C-alpha cells in the first residue's frame, strides 16, 4: 500500500524583486520533510507566520513549491494537472468558503460533479455525507449557507472535502473561527469521525490543546522550518525550546 502523503525537502521562496543581493526572496518554507500514513493525522503546529498554511498550499499546489517534492499516494504532485491533483485532496479552510448561491447539497456535491459523476450517485453520496457530519439530510440539503450557523457551515465544509473520498485531507484551522463551545463539540466529533474514515490528514492549528487532542503526530514549525516532529507524548516531553513555549501556553 502506498503512503498517502510524502513530503521531501519542500521549500517556498517568495519571488524577490529588484536585482543583485535584493533579488533573493525570503524563504517562507524551508526544507520541510514528513510522511503521513493512512489513518494518520499529522498536526502542523506553530505561531502565526511560521509557514503552516503555506506548507498546506504547497501540497495541493495552490502555491508552487520552489524546492522539494510532494507525492500523493506515490504519484508526484507536479506531474499531475493542478486541478486533477486538488480533486484528489480534500481541503477545509477556516473561513469555510461555501458557495453562497449553491444549496448545501450542491456545495457538498461539487467535486463529484466536477468529476462527472451521475446525478443520482451524487445525490446518494451527498445524503450519506451529511449524515456522516451530523446534519439531517432532509432538513439541510436544500438550505443555503446563510441559513446555517457557523458550526453547521463548517460541518458542510468537511462533508464537501470528503465528497469524492480523497485519500488525503488538508485542514487549515477548520475550527478556528467557531465559538468555544461549538469548537469543542466539533473537535470531539471530528476525532470520532477520523477514526471511522481512515483518511490521511494534515491538520494546521496554532492551538496546542487541539493539536494534542487530534494529532497522531505533531510537527512543530518555526520560521518556515520543521523544528520538531514526533508523537504527542514526545512533544510533551521535548526539551526543544519552541515545544516548551507551546506547552507552557497550553
Amino acid at each position, binding site marked *: 500500500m502506498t503512503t498517502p502523503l510524502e513530503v521531501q525537502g519542500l521549500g517556498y521562496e517568495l519571488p524577490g524583486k529588484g536585482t543583485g543581493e535584493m533579488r533573493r526572496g525570503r524563504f517562507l518554507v524551508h526544507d520541510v520533510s514528513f510522511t503521513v500514513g493512512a489513518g494518520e493525522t499529522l498536526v502542523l503546529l506553530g505561531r502565526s507566520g511560521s509557514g503552516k498554511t503555506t506548507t498546506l498550499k504547497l501540497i495541493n499546489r495552490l502555491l508552487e513549491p520552489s524546492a522539494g517534492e510532494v507525492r500523493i499516494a506515490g504519484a508526484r504532485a507536479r506531474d499531475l494537472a493542478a486541478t486533477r491533483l486538488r480533486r484528489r485532496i480534500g481541503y477545509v479552510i477556516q473561513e469555510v*468558503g461555501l458557495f453562497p448561491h449553491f444549496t448545501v447539497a450542491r456545495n457538498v456535491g461539487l467535486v463529484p460533479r466536477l468529476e462527472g459523476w451521475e446525478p443520482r450517485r451524487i445525490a446518494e453520496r451527498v445524503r450519506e455525507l451529511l449524515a456522516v457530519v451530523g446534519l439531517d439530510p432532509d432538513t439541510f440539503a436544500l438550505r443555503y449557507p446563510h441559513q446555517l450557523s457557523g458550526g453547521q457551515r463548517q460541518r458542510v465544509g468537511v462533508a464537501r472535502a470528503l465528497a469524492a473520498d480523497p485519500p488525503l485531507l488538508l485542514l487549515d484551522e477548520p475550527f478556528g473561527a467557531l465559538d468555544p463551545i461549538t469548537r469543542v463539540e466539533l473537535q470531539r466529533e471530528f476525532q470520532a469521525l477520523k477514526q471511522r474514515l481512515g483518511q490521511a490528514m494534515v491538520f494546521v492549528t496554532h492551538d496546542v490543546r487541539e493539536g494534542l487532542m487530534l494529532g497522531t503526530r505533531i510537527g512543530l514549525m518555526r520560521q518556515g522550518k520543521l523544528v520538531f516532529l514526533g508523537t504527542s507524548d514526545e512533544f510533551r516531553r521535548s526539551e526543544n525550546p519552541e515545544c516548551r513555549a507551546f506547552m507552557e501556553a497550553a
Partner: protein
Amino acid sequence: MNLWQFYARNSGEVLGLVGQHVSLVASSTAIAIVVGVPVGIALTRRPAWRAPVLGLANVFQTIPSLALFGFLIPLPFIGGIGATTAIVALVVYALLPIVRNTYTGLAGVDPAVREAGRGMGMTDWQLLTQVELPLGLGVILAGVRVATVVSVGTATIAAAIGAGGLGVYIFRGVAVVDDTLILAGALPAALMALAADGLLGLAERRFAWRAQ
C-alpha cells in the same frame, strides 16, 4: 398647438423616431456588454492592466458628447454621418460603467469562496462561470443599468450627426424656439430612461447574491 395635438398629428413620425432611439440604445449597449464584460474579467486576471484601462475609459467619459460625435465624423469606417457613428460614440460612453462594474463585481467575491473553489479543483473557467459571474451578476447589471440610462439621454444628441432618434424634435425645437417640439422629444426620452432604470433595477435585485 399643444403636445397631445402634435402627437396626434405626427403619430407615424413619432413612433419612427422612438424606434430609432431604442435601436441606437439597444445596439450600443449590447456591443458595450459584449466588449466590456470580457475586458472587466480580464482586469481581474491581470491586475497591472486595471489602472491604465479604467483610466482610459474614464478619459473617454470626460469628452463632451457633442464633441465626441464631432471628432468621429471625419474618421473612416466608424465615422461619418449617421447611425454607425452615433453607436460608436454611445458604446464608448457605455464601456466605463460596464467594465468597472464587471471588475468590481468579480473582485467583490469573498476570497475564501474563490480559494475553496480553486482548492476543490475547479479550473479558472469553472470558477468564473459557476462562481464569480453568478455572484457578481447583480453588480454587473447595475453597471448595465447606468450605461443604458446614460445612453438614452446621450442618444438624443445623435440627431446632431444625422442618426435620428428623439433628438430630432429637440434640435428642431431649439432651432425654432418651440417648447412643445422640445418637449415632444424630451418627454418620451425621459420615460424611456425611467423604464430602462426600473426594468434593469428589477433584474439587478433578482440576481443580487449578497446573502451573507
